[in-house]
């Protein structure tokens, strides 16, 4: 999603110079380890869902609806008698998958455009940046909701809707990095030596500037998970009966005063997921560019 973070990154890019990286072993990097652990566990949970979930997440039992947590159902049952814990576990598949995949298109698209804009400058830069400004000025939820309406319900539309809104941040970040990078000696030298634009971009500038985009991507994953959850809450997300944390919160909200777990626990797991991914991002940030201040 487009946020002020991306803009700030743009500002900061201008004021930094590239400095050599320090070497600190990755396993001593607290955030990285914590992040990897949490994300790892969640991914494991998602992958092993068929094995570890006690029940089928969409299996209804209309005789046993809205039960409080018990030995048979650790988190109780929802209004169709489905086991909430199983839905939580299976939900990880949907939310994690969409959260991680949704960054790919904007990452690629935005970075490429941003890179081109920053590298070539001139009117190419001006046009691309104006388009970026248009999308940036556009109220993002309007675009997401409108696109979901236009493209129809379903997972593909969610990817496209999120992509349409988030590519802007990557464009801004990568452009900022490229602007700084292309002045560096090694680039100037390569060009003088006769290397083509493409090669310079791909072999020299690319790897250096993408690290910032990757780091931003981690926080973008968090925002995308949030977006899917919010769309689910608005009833615009994945169609029922698929288990998904956002629609679980929506379903659970009706019973917030009696069976509070059903709305609260999915929310908590979203928080834990975000925490894990953010720590992972922080750790990556340390790894890839420790001189950057968080």
């Amino acid at each position, binding site marked *: 999603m*487009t*946020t*002020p*973070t991306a*803009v*700030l990154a*743009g*500002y*900061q890019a*201008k004021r930094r110079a590239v400095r050599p990286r320090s070497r600190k072993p990755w396993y001593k990097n607290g955030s990285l380890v914590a992040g990897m652990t949490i994300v790892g566990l969640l991914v494991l949970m998602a992958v092993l869902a068929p094995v570890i979930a006690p029940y089928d997440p969409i299996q209804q039992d209309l005789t046993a609806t809205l039960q409080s947590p018990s030995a048979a159902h650790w988190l109780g049952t929802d209004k169709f008698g489905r086991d909430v814990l199983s839905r939580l576990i299976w939900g990880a598949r949907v939310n994690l998958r969409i959260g991680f995949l949704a960054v790919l298109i904007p990452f690629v698209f935005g970075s490429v455009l941003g890179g081109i804009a920053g590298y070539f400058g001139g009117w190419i830069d001006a046009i691309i940046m*104006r*388009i970026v*400004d*248009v*999308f*940036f*000025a*556009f*109220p*993002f*939820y*309007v*675009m997401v*909701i*409108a*696109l979901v*309406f*236009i493209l*129809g319900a379903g997972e593909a539309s969610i990817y496209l809707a999120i992509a349409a809104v988030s590519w802007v941040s990557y464009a801004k970040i990568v452009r*900022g990095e490229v*602007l700084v990078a292309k002045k560096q000696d090694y680039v100037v030298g390569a060009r003088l030596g006769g290397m083509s634009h493409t090669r310079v971009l791909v072999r020299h500038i690319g790897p250096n500037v993408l690290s910032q985009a990757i780091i931003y991507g981690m*926080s973008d994953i*968090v925002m995308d998970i*949030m977006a899917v*959850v*919010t769309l689910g*809450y*608005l009833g615009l997300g994945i169609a029922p009966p698929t288990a998904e944390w*956002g629609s679980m*919160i929506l379903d659970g*909200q009706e019973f*917030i*005063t009696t069976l509070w777990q059903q*709305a*609260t626990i999915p*929310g908590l797991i*979203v*928080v*834990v*997921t*975000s*925490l894990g991914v*953010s*720590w992972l991002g922080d750790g990556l940030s340390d790894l890839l560019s420790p001189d950057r*201040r*968080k």
Partner: protein
Amino acid sequence: MSSRLNFIPARLLQAIPVVFGVTLLVFFMAHLLPGDPAIAMLGDKATEERIAALRTQLGLDQPIWVQYGIFLAHLGQANLGDSLTYGRPVTELVLRAVPVTLSLVLFALVLSMVIGIPLAGLAATRPNGVNDLAVRTYTLVGQGMPQFWVGIMLILFLSLKLRLFPVGGYGSNITDHVYYLFVPALTLAIALSPTLIRSLRSSTINVLGSEYIATARSKGSGGVALFRQHVLRNAIIPTVSILGVNLGYLMGGSIIIEKVFALPGLGSLMLNAIFSRDFPTIQGVTLFVALFVVLIGILTDVVYTLLDPRVNFGSKERE
């Protein structure tokens, strides 16, 4: 100094194609929405005959380019058209909704600063210490909680359990507004403060390590006074840009909060307009928000320039 501000005219000029681009984007996106205002208005019992009659009445059966032309022509006269659902001028509806969202957003920004500045300071004085880690965990948790969920939790706790605040709504006079807006603003602030804290913390660490502060310390200043007078004043500079950008971002992003708390702001206006395919309102509100974002962006850069003598937006490599 005025020479550093000479980026303003160029930026204002650049804003024009941006705003024009927004009108194009929103117009065509709105018209791509399945269904149209006639269907949205007439309910489940409407016959095809009545839908067709209403479409003609609303001018929806004209070719799309003609409709876009009419839209632009009105825009040239600063007329955003009339809401198809309410029949009132869109400008009137927007001007009524803006104060609500603006108050909410400003209130949220103030609360984020109230939360964020002390926390950032606490974290920055001893990086990687216990306080720092606690604050950084707070920032990650704050960013990781879905807004509507935080809203629901706060309502449950503050409004229902403790009976301290009302459950949503906006109230009818200024004191009411402040009272009613507290919980929604707090919800937003919890989501906002993390970005603020991160930026402030990092720039505070930079400032604390600078020679300028070392000098001040050697002269005997210390503690809170030092923080307030010297550190904060310098550290806040990059944070200003964050605040500015957040302001614009939030004006367009308050849809969820306004729904949960029943606030009649731009977000609600927009959400209803989308559901009822009220094209003029969708276009009007989007345009307004876009203009606001662009202008705030320029204003932020101005303030940033004024505060930080090292920054120069007038140089060739623009942000």
